[in-house]
C-alpha cells in the first residue's frame, strides 16, 4: 500500500485563487477556470500505487571472491513479471557502506511494461572482508503521481561481496599463476625451459635428444633444460603506520595490498616446493624484537599459518590506521632481526609501499649479508595530484635508492595485474645450487 504524495497542493491553491478571484470580480469564467486545477487534483487522487509481488529483483556480483583493490561489477536487474505496466519504477541498491562506487550508479528508474526489465550496473572497489549488501529499495509511483509506494525486496543471486587475500581473480588465472616460483639455476638438467645442448652421452633419455638437429646434421645431441631448485624465501611485510594508508577513500591500504601480494606469491612458491617464511614489521607480534615471525617451512599448513598472520596484519592496519608512535630505532631493530632470523642463505622479499625511508635503510643494511634481496613496492600514491605527485616522486627516488643498493626492485603500480608483477619479481631470480644468488634469467 502506498503513501499519498502532496504533489498537487499547488492545484488546490490555484483552484482557490481562481474561485476567490471569480467571486470577488463576479466573473463566471474565472470561477469555471477553477475546475481545471481541481481536475488535476482529482486525477492525482484517483491514481494508486503499490509495489507488486511480480516485481522480481536479482543481483550479480562479479567476481566474488575478489582480491583487494580489484574492481567488482554489480548488476541489479528488476523485472516486471506481472501483466500490468508500471509507469514509474525506481530502484536503489543497498551498497555496502565500506565500499566505494568506482563507476556507474547504484540508482535507476524506468517504465516497465509486462515482461520488461531494467538493469543497473556499477563498479565497486573490493576491500578485504565480507561485505553484505542491503536489500535494494524499490519505489513505484502511480500514473497520476498521487500515491507513492516504497518497499524493499530480497534479491535473487548474490547478496554479499567477499574479498579475500587468496582470491583467485580472473586476471590472475588469465595470466597464469604457475609462472611464479620458477627459481632456476645455472646447472642445466631436467626441466621445461630450453637452456643449451650438449653432446649425446650414453644413457641420456630419448626424450631429451635433439631429434631435429640429428635430422639436419646427423649428430646426436642432448637438450639441457633450466633446472629448478628449491630455495627459501622470507617475505617481510611492512605494516607500520606509514604503510597504513590508501590511495583514496574506499580503497585498500598498502598493508592490505601487500598482504594480498604476499599471499599469492607464497602460495605459488609453496606449490613449487620452496620453503617460505614470513615476517611482519610494525605490528606487536610475539616473535623476537616484537616481530610477527613465521619460521620458513613448506606444505599447506605453512600456507595456512602465513595467511592467518597476514589477515591479522591487515586487520590491525584497518582497525588502527594511525598506528602507534613510530620509533625508528625499534623499526630498524625489527628489520635487523629479520636478517638474523632468516639467515644468509635465504632470499628476502620486502613488501612495502616505500612511503618513508626506514625500509630503504633496512634494505641497505641487509646488503651486508650476501643474500638475494627483492623489494616489491605497492603503489598507493595518487600520481595525478599535486601532493600525490610529490609523494610519487619521493617514492620513485626511494625505489632508485633500493635498486642502487643492489636489491632487485619491483614497482607494482596500480592497474598492473599482480601475476605479471610476481613474474617479474621471481622468474628472473636465479640461484645456484651452492646457495649464492645472482640476477639473471630472462623475464
Amino acid at each position, binding site marked *: 500500500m502506498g503513501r499519498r504524495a502532496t504533489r498537487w497542493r499547488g492545484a488546490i491553491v490555484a483552484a482557490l485563487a481562481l474561485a476567490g478571484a471569480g467571486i470577488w470580480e463576479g466573473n463566471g469564467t474565472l470561477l469555471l477556470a477553477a475546475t481545471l486545477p*481541481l481536475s488535476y487534483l482529482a486525477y492525482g*487522487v484517483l491514481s494508486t500505487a503499490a509495489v507488486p509481488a511480480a516485481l522480481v529483483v536479482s543481483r550479480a556480483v562479479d567476481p566474488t571472491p575478489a582480491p583487494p583493490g580489484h574492481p567488482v561489477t554489480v548488476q541489479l536487474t528488476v523485472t516486471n513479471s506481472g501483466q500490468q505496466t508500471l509507469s514509474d519504477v525506481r530502484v536503489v541498491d543497498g551498497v555496502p557502506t565500506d565500499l566505494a562506487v568506482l563507476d556507474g550508479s547504484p540508482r535507476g528508474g524506468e517504465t516497465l511494461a509486462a515482461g520488461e526489465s531494467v538493469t543497473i550496473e556499477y563498479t565497486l572497489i573490493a576491500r578485504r572482508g565480507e561485505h553484505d549488501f542491503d536489500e535494494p529499495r524499490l519505489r513505484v509511483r502511480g500514473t497520476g503521481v498521487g500515491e507513492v509506494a516504497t518497499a524493499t525486496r530480497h534479491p535473487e543471486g548474490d547478496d554479499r561481496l567477499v574479498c579475500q587475500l587468496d582470491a583467485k581473480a580472473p586476471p590472475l588465472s588469465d595470466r597464469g599463476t604457475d609462472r611464479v616460483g620458477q627459481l632456476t639455476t645455472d646447472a642445466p638438467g631436467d626441466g621445461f625451459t630450453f637452456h643449451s645442448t650438449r653432446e649425446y652421452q650414453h644413457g641420456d633419455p630419448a626424450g631429451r635428444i635433439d631429434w631435429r638437429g640429428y635430422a639436419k646434421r646427423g649428430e646426436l645431441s642432448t637438450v639441457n633444460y633450466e633446472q629448478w631448485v628449491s630455495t627459501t624465501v622470507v617475505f617481510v611485510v611492512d605494516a607500520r603506520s606509514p604503510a597504513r594508508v590508501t590511495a583514496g577513500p574506499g580503497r585498500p591500504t598498502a598493508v592490505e595490498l601487500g598482504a594480498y601480494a604476499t599471499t599469492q606469491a607464497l602460495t605459488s612458491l609453496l606449490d613449487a616446493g620452496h620453503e617460505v617464511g614470513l615476517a611482519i614489521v610494525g605490528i606487536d607480534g610475539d616473535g623476537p624484537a616484537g616481530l610477527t615471525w613465521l619460521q620458513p617451512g613448506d606444505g599447506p599448513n605453512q600456507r595456512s599459518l602465513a595467511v592467518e598472520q597476514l589477515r591479522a596484519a591487515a586487520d590491525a592496519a584497518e582497525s588502527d590506521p594511525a598506528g602507534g608512535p613510530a620509533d625508528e630505532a625499534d623499526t630498524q631493530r625489527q628489520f635487523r632481526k629479520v636478517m638474523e632470523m632468516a639467515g644468509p642463505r635465504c632470499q628476502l622479499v620486502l613488501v612495502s609501499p616505500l612511503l618513508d625511508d626506514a625500509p630503504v635503510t633496512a634494505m641497505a643494511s641487509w646488503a651486508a649479508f650476501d643474500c638475494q634481496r627483492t623489494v616489491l613496492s605497492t603503489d598507493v600514491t595518487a600520481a595525478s595530484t599535486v601532493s600525490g*605527485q610529490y609523494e610519487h616522486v619521493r617514492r620513485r*627516488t626511494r625505489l632508485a635508492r633500493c635498486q642502487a643498493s643492489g636489491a632487485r626492485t619491483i614497482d607494482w603500480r596500480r592497474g598492473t*595485474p599482480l601475476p605479471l608483477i610476481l613474474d617479474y619479481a621471481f622468474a628472473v631470480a636465479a640461484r645456484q645450487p651452492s646457495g649464492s644468488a645472482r640476477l639473471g634469467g630472462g623475464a
Partner: protein
Amino acid sequence: MNRRHVGLGIAVLCGLLLVAAGAVIGLIGTPEPAASGPGAAGVLVLLVCVLVAFWKLLRTPDDPAISPSPWAADDGFTREYLETTPTDDAVSGTDLAERVEAAVAKARDDGSVDGSVGPVREPLRATLTEALVQGGHDPDTVKAQLAAGSWTDDPVAAAVLDESVAPPDRPFRARLRAWLFPEKAVRKRCARAMAAVSVAADDALPTVVGQRAPRPVPVVAPAVADLQRAADGSLQRAIDGSIPKREDIEASENGTSEEARVDRDGTAADGATSSESETDGTTLVNDDGTDVTATNGADWGDVTEGRD
C-alpha cells in the same frame, strides 16, 4: 483509506459545485460587478480562500499516510548518499597539501604571490635535489642549476624553487587575476612547480622493473561521489586544484603566462580539470571529461585510466 475517500469526495463535490455555479452564472448572463465592490460575503469567501491556500502551502504534513517530499530528511529512499565512502581512511601523500595550504593562507593574508610560495619551496627543492642526485647528477651542479633556474624549461617553476630566480613577466591579465585571486595564483604556481619537478625527476631517475608494465586493470577512476557535472555536460572532479600535464609544461617553455596552460586546454580560468598522461604509453587516459583534480585539505585524487 477512509480519509482518502473523504478527500476524494470533497474534491469532486467542490469541483461539481463550481462547475454548476459557473454554468448557472453563464446561463443567466454575466452579472455586472456591484459598483460598491463585493459584499461582505464575497470578502469573507475571499479571506477563507486565502487562508486555506496559505495553510495548504505552508503546512508540513505529518500524517504517516502522506509520503514525505523527496528532499525530506526522513525519506528512507533517498536519505543515504550511496556513492560516498568513509572519509576516515588515512590517505597517502598529504604532506605537500598541507604546505600548499600554508602558502595559500599566506597569500590570502599578504596578497603577495611571489612571496607566499616559501612553505612549498623547501620540500620541492629537497625532493628534486634528491631525485637528481640519485639519478647520477652532481650535488653541486644541481645546486647551481637550481640557482640559475636551468633545471627546467618552465621559468615559473624555476622561480618557485629558488627565490633568486626572477619570475617571468606576465601579461596584464595574469597580473590582474593574481591580484584579485592570490590564492588561486599560488595554487597554480605550486602545481606547475610540482609538475616540473616530476618531469625532471622522471628524466633523471633510472627505470625500475614494473614501471612500464601494462596497466589494464581500471582501478583509479575518481569515485562517483567526487564528480560534478560541468556546464558543458562533462563530468569533472568536484574540488579544485590540479596539476598540469607534462606536455603542457613542455609546451610552455616559451610561454611565460601562468594562464597559457589553462587557456590551451580549454578549461575554466581556475583550472579545475586536468588528466594525467602516463609516460609509458600503456595507460589509457580518458578524454571524456572524467578528469582529475586534487582536493584542498585531503589530497587524494587519482589518475583516470580506461579499460583496455
